């Protein structure tokens, strides 16, 4: 094992870590935004739309992410052409982010839905009876109570997302993993163990840092949970995916 070599190649990875982080952050934020209407449609059981969302969630859950990435990379241009945009090929990062947003929109909606349903009807009615608008009710009463319940599930989603993002090299994105495949080619396969071990260490580091950030939020969550007096088991609190 050539530890010297691992130290040498590390700076080259530093250049592409931002790509991975960009993909993860965009997918997490927009995925969460997408998951809200998806969860709302399912909670309200809006006819037709609710069944469509059910199929969408089931599809994203039951097909490999790698396959979904290919579908987006090759399928999106076709779709865009159908609706009149003349694009032959889309940027691999765009396809990757779009795919992971869609994936997380489904995944996170299944975290939000049980969290919403865990809030007692009386909490809604108390706010409604005082004349809160739906938005005021969500903001000051419901979401603060949902947040601690949904947090473990959302944290999980982000850790998954970090790992799933390592597949985007397959459609040509030069992220951490993409860089690794380039390097292992450069050395004609001589230093593969060193390269992939370095990559593993980098992912470990990113995941550890993310977990610490999530844990900071969880500490707040514990306080809120204690205040509300909800005695929730973690399992029923959003690990439903």
């Amino acid at each position, binding site marked *: 094992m050539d530890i010297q070599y691992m130290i040498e190649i590390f700076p080259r990875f530093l250049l592409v870590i931002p790509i991975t982080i960009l993909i993860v952050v965009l997918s997490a934020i927009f995925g969460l935004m997408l998951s809200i209407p998806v969860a709302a449609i399912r909670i309200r059981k809006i006819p037709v739309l609710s069944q469509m969302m059910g199929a969408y969630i089931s599809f994203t859950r039951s097909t490999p992410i790698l396959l979904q990435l290919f579908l987006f990379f090759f399928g999106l241009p076709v779709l865009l052409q159908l609706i009149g945009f003349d694009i032959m090929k889309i940027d691999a990062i765009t396809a990757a982010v779009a795919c992971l947003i869609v994936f997380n929109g489904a995944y996170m909606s299944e975290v939000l839905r049980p969290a919403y349903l865990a809030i*007692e009807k009386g909490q809604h009615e*108390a706010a409604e009876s*005082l*004349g809160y608008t739906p938005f005021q009710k969500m903001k000051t009463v419901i979401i603060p109570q949902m947040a601690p319940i949904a947090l473990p599930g959302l944290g999980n989603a982000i850790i998954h997302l970090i790992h799933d993002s390592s597949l985007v090299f397959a459609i040509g994105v030069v992220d951490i993993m993409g860089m690794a495949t380039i390097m292992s080619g450069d050395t004609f396969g001589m230093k593969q163990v060193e390269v992939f071990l370095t990559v593993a260490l980098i992912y470990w580091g990113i995941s550890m840092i993310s977990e610490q950030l999530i844990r900071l939020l969880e500490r707040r969550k514990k306080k809120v949970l204690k205040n509300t*007096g909800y005695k929730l088991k973690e399992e029923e609190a959003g690990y439903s995916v």
Partner: protein
Amino acid sequence: MLNIEHLDLSFGDSKVLDDINLEVHKGEVITFIGPSGTGKTSLLRCINLLEKPDGGRITLGGDTYDYGSITKKETLDLRRKTAMVFQQYNLFKNKTVLENVMDAQIVVQKKSKAAARDKSMAELARVGLEAKADAYPHQLSGGQQQRVSIARALAVEPEVILFDEPTSALDPELVGEVLKTIGEVAGSGMTIILVTHEMSFAEDISDRVVFMDRGKVAEEGPPQQIFRHSNHARTQQFLRKFYTASH
């Protein structure tokens, strides 16, 4: 001041409220009694639109709202003139006692924090719980929670407070403190519509008692008439059953 005309409500095929008419004057205490499943809760919930009636009209605080064609804005407007005290208290679990009482004043009435705090502390003092201002609901007894929810209702200065069996979720030894608080609220001139199974309390506190049966007003009158001299067969039957069950 509050006037309900021809209120109808059904759930699916079953008619739960059938042509209810009710007039309540300012400062009056009206109590609804009647068998289980008669529609007492449903009527209170219709008044502040937690349940949407099929038809009828309500006049409150000078404005008339047509249930059949009520808009979202009118719904909020009507709700802001009423307050509800629930059987299960329904305090906001994520907020302290003080925040529970303050919140609607800030969020809905757009009062300043300082003004809302002063008002809330005054209302908490009124129900005897200013010392619990910083506690969370689950740290209080049921009776204390219900008194906080009464303070929360008072704090928005509604035209009318609707009480739905405010003591029936409580342990027997906690009923008294809540009834005492309600009595004080009634004494202060607040208009009250109360649903209860506490018959002797109802007799003491009410200006008028309404006996409801199967979705209709079967009999109404002063408490002495309903409780002592009713000549309505269903009322007598209900009260007889009630007293034999509870004594």
